[in-house]
């Protein structure tokens, strides 16, 4: 009977397409919106993942996410170093600065006339930047990838490294953010910015994960970072620590918390702490949740409706099959098979479309990340839609009197 069920299903091309497209739509919306949501959540903690080399983050006890900057006094660095199980600890400055850029461009004369000369106009741009000050000696926390330049150049006077995508804001219209050509990126080396009335020279272009606020990221040394930011009494934002080889980072984190009264987290814990903050205190999950639920409902409506209509239209055929001795169990089997096939097709096409969308927007503005867990979740949603749709159909067919086949 299985082939008959499938032939019935594909016999009416329009209905078949309607069911599959409804499910595709639902699967795509769930997978795609889920991926954008996960991508955004990852962006909120991108800076934690970008800083490598340390196991533990130590911070003010009131910090609740990575951009929640609550500076500490520098003495805390020595207290952390004193905790048992800590191999080393270094300071990290993280804060927001303002970079001033001076550029020139030629202004058209006014009134327009070919004889009057064009004038050179000075233009100032002020941009918010995320400033990361790395330990002067060890440079712990360096970004993973440097397109051009050398990390050691950070030890030269006034040196900073900026991230490639940030070039868009620092040097708008010059195309640096969309290039990965080292020769072209080299042209940005040696350019100057001004921060807190101090000169800063770009010595390298690095790759940093995009941040939630999309500010450019500026790396420099810890002591220089203090100069680039207006004077504060407590300059240190984080202490990065490494645990001894045979110690578990979680235990050492607890020891640090007990000994110093500060908050200590492993990178992973800090990531989840940050994500949880955004989940709890922003409307982001609700917004995405609504979209996902809408996708689910619209998918259920389209696919379920079409599937139900399809069954209703075939009611007489099902009646004839029942009269001819096909049991209810086997008819239910036929309906479930039809639902399963359309569900599988819809899932495949939907997830495929979402993946294609993700690929097409890769490297662009859109945050898009598909953890593997999203696939079973999408699958479960589709299965649920199929079950809902088939329950209605199964009910109709099971209570169907085969005697209807003799009625007009």
């Amino acid at each position, binding site marked *: 009977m299985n082939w008959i069920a499938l032939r019935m299903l594909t016999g009416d091309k329009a209905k078949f397409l309607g069911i599959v497209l409804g499910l595709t739509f639902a699967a795509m919306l769930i997978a795609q919106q889920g991926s954008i949501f996960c991508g955004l959540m990852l962006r909120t903690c991108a800076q934690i993942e970008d800083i490598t080399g340390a196991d533990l983050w130590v911070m003010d006890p009131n910090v609740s996410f990575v951009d929640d900057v609550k500076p500490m006094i520098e003495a805390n660095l020595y207290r952390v170093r004193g905790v048992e199980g800590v191999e080393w600890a270094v300071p990290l400055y993280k804060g927001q600065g303002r970079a001033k850029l001076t550029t020139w461009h030629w202004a058209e004369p006014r009134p327009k006339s070919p004889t009057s000369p064009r004038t050179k106009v000075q233009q100032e741009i002020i941009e918010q930047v995320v400033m990361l000050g790395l330990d002067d000696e060890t440079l712990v926390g360096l970004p993973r990838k440097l397109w051009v330049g050398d990390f050691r150049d950070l030890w030269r006077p006034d040196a900073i490294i900026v991230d490639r995508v940030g070039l868009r804001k620092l040097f708008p219209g010059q195309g640096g953010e969309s290039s990965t050509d080292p020769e072209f990126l080299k042209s940005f080396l040696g350019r100057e910015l001004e921060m807190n009335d101090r000169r800063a020279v770009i010595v390298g272009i690095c790759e940093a994960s995009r941040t939630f606020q999309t500010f450019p990221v500026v790396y420099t040394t810890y002591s220089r970072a203090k100069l680039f930011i207006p004077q504060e009494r407590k300059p240190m934002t984080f202490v990065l620590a490494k645990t001894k080889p045979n110690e578990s980072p979680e235990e050492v984190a607890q020891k640090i918390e007990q000994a110093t009264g500060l908050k200590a987290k492993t990178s992973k814990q800090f990531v989840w702490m940050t994500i949880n903050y955004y989940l709890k205190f922003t409307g982001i999950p609700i917004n995405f949740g609504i979209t996902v639920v809408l996708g689910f409902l619209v998918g259920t409506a389209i696919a379920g409706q079409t599937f139900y209509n399809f069954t209703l239209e075939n009611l007489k055929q099902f009646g*004839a*099959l*029942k*009269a001819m*001795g*096909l*049991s209810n169990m086997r008819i239910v089997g036929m309906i479930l098979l039809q639902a399963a096939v359309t569900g599988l097709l819809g899932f495949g096409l939907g997830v495929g479309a979402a993946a294609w969308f993700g690929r097409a927007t890769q490297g662009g503005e859109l945050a898009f990340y598909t953890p593997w867990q999203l696939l079973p979740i999408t699958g479960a949603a589709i299965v649920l839609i199929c079950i809902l749709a088939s329950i209605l159909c199964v009910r109709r067919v099971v209570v169907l*009197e085969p005697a209807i*086949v*003799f009625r007009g």
Partner: protein
Amino acid sequence: MLDSSTAEREMVAGVLAEPGLEGEVAIRLRDVNKTFGTGEQTVLALRGVDWDIYRGQLTMLVGPSGCGKTTLLSVVAGILDCDRGGVVEVFGSDVARMRGGAKTRFRMDNIGFVFQQYNLLPALTAMENASVPLIIAGVPRPRALERAREVLTSLGMGNRLGSLPSQLSGGQQQRVAIARALVHEPRLIVCDEPTAALDHESGQAVMRLMRDAAVKSDRSVLVVSHDSRVFHFADRMARMDDGRIVQVRSQVGSAQEPEAGDVWEAAARA
């Protein structure tokens, strides 16, 4: 032991049966009642039907519209339950006492259906449609299709095996439906108004086919019709009125169309 009312019923059935020409009883109906609805809307569609149908014959059930023909046919075919107390014995099994699964299996093994509206599956070809009862019975697909091909060929449809129902005329579709009713060699074939949707020529051809291919010594064919032009195909006719069998008559089935003014035509017009 027969109580008095049962004995009376046997007598009525015997009188109606007009003895002499008949063979073995295939279907025995005793005190078959069917009530639709409840309260104000109650309809007594069958009112104590007593009737014997014989093997090896094409039996035609005629009567005015709404008199209960379709209802009786459905009860005999086991797709409709009659009211409690009746006997519906089909080839020795009491269909009225069978429950869900057993009844379904009984239909699968013993009954072939021909419908007025053909009820073919639109997505399947003629050959596939004709194979459906075998597929339901669990016969492997290649063998089922082979057998369907044989039957269709014997019904003169050998050149339309791969056609979809939508590509066939009404008469051709009804032939596919007959092939489907015959393919698994059931002992009872039931047809409700098989020629009502067909023109005169196709109707005659379909009924001729029924006579030639369906009627066998160990099989019974029961046809409901009020198309007087096909009455002469019957071996035996029963007239129904108001939920009862009111008259039964045997005739020698012939392919000749009857003279105008035949008593049964009058019956059908009544």
